[in-house]
């Protein structure tokens, strides 16, 4: 083994160099936990649409500046807006609108025939006389509200109808005097400010910078007697990043400290601390492998990975625990004895991780890669480096722990002599059955994000004050060309209108609300051709016939308006993100976004029978995928267990192999049952923990079976590595992210059962033969 020292050191230097190169531009760490969720199953266009809809979430910051005195808002908003505009972080900061009136008028004039389908258009076509009478009255109504078009360009009021349709009333109102977007609520007046970041939100630096700017702005506004509310996907990212780094240092620190104390307390030699080298190499190898394979390493992987510490220390611990065997501790000789066991446990672990890596869940894949690479690193360190450095290490560990183990084993034998293994097994299975029966599944995405209540409260307040409640579901509408997309969206719109009037949906935005398809424009032109006979109401109030006829003629000659023209005008701005344009297959596609959805279930049937219309429900899809992944992970794990069984069959024979494979599964089952008894949910994460437990359990079982130095020494080795693992994984119970805490709890339970069941993997003793099932 000494021969391997030099090549290993070379490998270590290479690893260091690789890591240094990977970290040359700062940490390659991604904070977006959602990036670990699987990609949607849809085609390229669906993915493009999802990216388009997610963009505002990742890049926009919405601020509401509130003050009891409305007249102070312009100055407050102006100061904040100006300050943020100077920040290089932002691409655009908008606090004041300066409507382009000439552009607006031009667009209204050009779009008059393209009035989108709805009640107003129906009236023009079906009951023109009623409409014209009302229009004549409106000319003398001092309160009818003036349109942007001057009266002599809009005698018939089509421009006004269009303007009302494209700028519907909302809670946020444009204040013509100050140019601000204002809303009222909670006893204050509020001005809306929107900022858009230059970088992508999940660039590592942007979220904390945005959070710092928000806090600085809040202090200023509060100092002036106002209030500030902010909502942005970036804020969640910032909170996630802060939690990750805090917990990583807390849990990693506790784990390292605990492991140190354990090593020093038991072996009382400074040199045993070299075990931590295995941990260091494991972390380095894990993160290097992840960055190499995925370009970045996710913060979540790092948290779970940091807890790999204890597992990586398993190998040196097993190795050191053989010092209780008695006699002089010869590093090389012990290594030679334990090497087959260590190698087997590495192989079985790798098989387990391989299974996880095959799930379609990036989170599991990344953690599996990290762990596998880390374990290989720790194994190589233990095998190649430590024996050389531990030559002539004189270990004399205290005898007490060994005596406790011996007493425990004797106790177990006495118990077995009285009851036999079978009743115990049946009792355990009954316990498991009852526990599993109480178990409930939970796949809420909220588990995934540790939700900061302050952020959520602010986001809810903004949604309430502005009436903006975007939903994650939307419709993707495809067609042969833009016109067909408009027609299909019109058909979809009619069904959505029904939901809106039933109160199940607050509203929606579709391209078909911006303009009517060409056929409908022609229909309106046709209908207006008959208006020459119906001018009496307007003539009666004194509008000259020439003026009316000239406008009718102009309307007749108005060319068809196409979608690109409509989007280009100032009124088209809110619709622009909805247009995906030409698709690679030669068609065209557009989106329909939704607001204020009560129950996503009502959307399921809306698209039925409408060609080219597809509901995209990322959250629903994810929930389905969570369930699917859970099933897949279990299947893969069973498959991996089969592979491990074959491997052990070759090494130990049938009976031992069966026990070594079944004991960890039983431990995992018991832990699962405990979750049920405790009322804790089974999530993807606790499932992952249980899968990990089966890998760790196989380790213990192999080492117990090998029984190098006797059962008590092996059991002590198992206890030590169990405590080590708990120090790392179990401490994750402290995490404030529910998913991670759930993981920590499951693993702690599993470790306890693995340790309790491990003695059954010992080579059979005469009076213990009745345990056949493992």
């Amino acid at each position, binding site marked *: 083994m000494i021969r391997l020292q030099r090549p290993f050191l070379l490998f270590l230097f290479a690893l260091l160099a690789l890591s240094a190169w990977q970290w040359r531009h700062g940490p390659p760490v991604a904070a977006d936990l959602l990036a670990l969720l699987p990609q949607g199953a849809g085609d390229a266009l669906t993915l493009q649409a999802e990216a388009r809809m997610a963009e505002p979430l990742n890049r926009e910051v919405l601020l509401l500046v509130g003050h009891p005195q*409305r*007249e102070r808002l312009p100055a407050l908003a102006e100061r904040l807006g100006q300050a943020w505009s100077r920040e290089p972080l932002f691409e655009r900061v908008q606090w004041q609108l*300066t*409507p382009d*009136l000439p552009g607006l008028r031009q667009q209204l004039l050009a779009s008059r025939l393209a009035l989108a389908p709805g009640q107003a258009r129906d009236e023009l076509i079906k009951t023109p006389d009623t409409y014209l009478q009302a229009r*004549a*009255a409106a*000319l*003398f*109504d*001092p*309160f*009818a*509200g*003036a349109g942007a078009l*001057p*009266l*002599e360009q809009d005698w018939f009021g089509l421009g006004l109808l269009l303007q*009302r349709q494209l700028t519907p*009333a909302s809670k946020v*109102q*444009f*204040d*013509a*005097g*100050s*140019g601000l977007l204002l809303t009222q609520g909670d006893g204050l007046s509020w001005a809306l400010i929107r900022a858009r970041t230059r970088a992508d939100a999940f660039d590592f630096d942007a979220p904390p910078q945005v959070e710092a700017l928000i806090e600085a702005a809040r202090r200023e506004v509060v100092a002036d007697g106002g209030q500030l509310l902010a909502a942005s996907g970036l804020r969640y990212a910032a909170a996630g990043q802060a939690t990750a780094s805090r917990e990583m240092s807390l849990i990693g620190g506790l784990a390292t400290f605990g492991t140190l104390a354990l090593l020093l307390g038991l072996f009382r030699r400074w040199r045993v601390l070299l075990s931590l080298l295995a941990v260091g190499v494991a972390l380095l190898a894990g993160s290097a492998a992840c960055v190499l394979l995925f370009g970045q390493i996710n913060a979540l992987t790092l948290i779970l990975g940091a807890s790999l510490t204890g597992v990586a220390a398993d190998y040196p611990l097993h190795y050191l625990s053989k010092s209780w065997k008695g006699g002089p501790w010869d590093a090389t000789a012990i290594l030679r004895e334990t090497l087959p066991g260590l190698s087997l446990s590495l192989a079985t672990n790798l098989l387990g991780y391989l299974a996880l890596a095959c799930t379609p869940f990036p989170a599991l894949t990344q953690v599996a890669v990290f762990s596998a690479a880390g374990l290989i690193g720790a194994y190589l360190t233990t095998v190649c480096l430590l024996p050389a450095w531990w030559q002539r290490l004189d270990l004399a560990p205290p005898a007490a722990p060994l005596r406790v183990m011996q007493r425990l084993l004797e106790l177990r034998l006495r118990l077995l002599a009285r009851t036999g293994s079978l009743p115990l097994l049946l009792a355990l299975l009954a316990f498991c059955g009852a526990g599993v029966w109480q178990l409930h599944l939970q796949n809420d995405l909220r588990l995934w994000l540790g939700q900061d209540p302050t952020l959520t409260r602010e986001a809810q307040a903004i949604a309430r004050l502005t009436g903006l409640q975007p939903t994650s579901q939307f419709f993707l509408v495809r067609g042969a060309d833009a016109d067909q997309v408009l027609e299909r969206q019109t058909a979809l719109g009619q069904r959505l209108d029904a939901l809106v009037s039933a109160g199940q949906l607050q509203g929606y935005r579709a391209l078909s609300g911006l303009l009517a398809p060409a056929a409908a424009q022609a229909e309106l032109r046709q209908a207006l051709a008959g208006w020459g006979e119906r001018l009496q109401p307007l003539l*009666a*109030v*004194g*509008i*000259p016939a020439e*003026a009316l006829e000239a406008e009718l003629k102009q309307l007749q000659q108005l060319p068809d308006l196409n979608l690109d023209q409509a989007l280009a005008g100032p009124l088209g701005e809110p619709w622009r993100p909805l247009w995906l344009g030409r698709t690679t297959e030669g068609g065209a596609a557009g989106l329909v976004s939704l607001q204020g959805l009560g129950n996503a279930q009502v959307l399921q049937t809306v698209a039925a029978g409408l060609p080219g219309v597809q509901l995209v429900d990322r959250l629903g899809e994810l929930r389905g995928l969570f369930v699917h992944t859970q099933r897949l992970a279990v299947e893969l794990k069973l498959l991996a267990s089969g592979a491990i069984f074959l491997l052990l069959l070759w090494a130990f024979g049938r009976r031992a192999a069966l026990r070594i494979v079944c004991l960890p599964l039983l431990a995992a089952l018991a832990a699962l049952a405990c979750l049920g008894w405790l009322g804790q949910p089974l999530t993807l994460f606790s499932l992952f923990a249980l899968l990990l437990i089966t890998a760790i359990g196989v380790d213990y079982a192999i080492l117990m079976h090998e029984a190098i130095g006797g059962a008590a020494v092996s059991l002590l080795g198992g206890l030590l590595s169990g405590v080590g693992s708990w120090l790392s994984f179990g401490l994750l119970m402290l995490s404030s992210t529910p998913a991670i805490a759930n993981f920590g709890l499951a693993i702690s339970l599993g470790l306890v059962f693995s340790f309790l069941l491990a003695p059954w993997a010992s080579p059979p003793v005469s009076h213990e033969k009745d345990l056949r099932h493992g």
Partner: protein
Amino acid sequence: MRTLIALLLTLAAPLAQAFDLDDLATQLARPAAVAGSFVQQRYLRALPQPLTSSGHFTLARGLGLLWRLEKPLTQTYRITPGAIAKETPAGWTPLPGSDLAARQSALFLAVLGGDRSGLERDFELALSGDARHWQLRLTPRGALLKQVFDGILIQGGELVEQVEIRETQGDRSLLRLDGQARDALSADQRAAFQ
């Protein structure tokens, strides 16, 4: 001569200040009700003749405005601080809540009732004259209003007598009011506000 001018100026200064915006607001808000007739003329560049309409109105302090259009067609409107409604056979029907219309009605009430803070939000106010004959010039503040209005000129004595709105594109609207202050509303008028 110069001394004489200086003397006149010093004498005139307190006189000019004697009637300020607060005085005007108080003066206009004094009567419990104002009722009378109105004539509105819209001078449009495209038309040789102005579009003319006329009718009667009742302004009740704290309640709002009843606006009865009689020519060229008959229609009654009710403007209260929060809403505008139109009289139909089915009763008072609120007009579709266009923000601009709501703002205009608020502005209209502010002008007639002398609510200064409502006007100052969007316009710069310049008052000249005295209590019996004053002129209030409104110049828009915001970029959008500047693109729409050149200005608004309000004239009056004890009550508002004339409102002239000049639009940037050359159109002009002239509203003449001939009202009488009343101490109380008639029962009919009061009922209309319920």
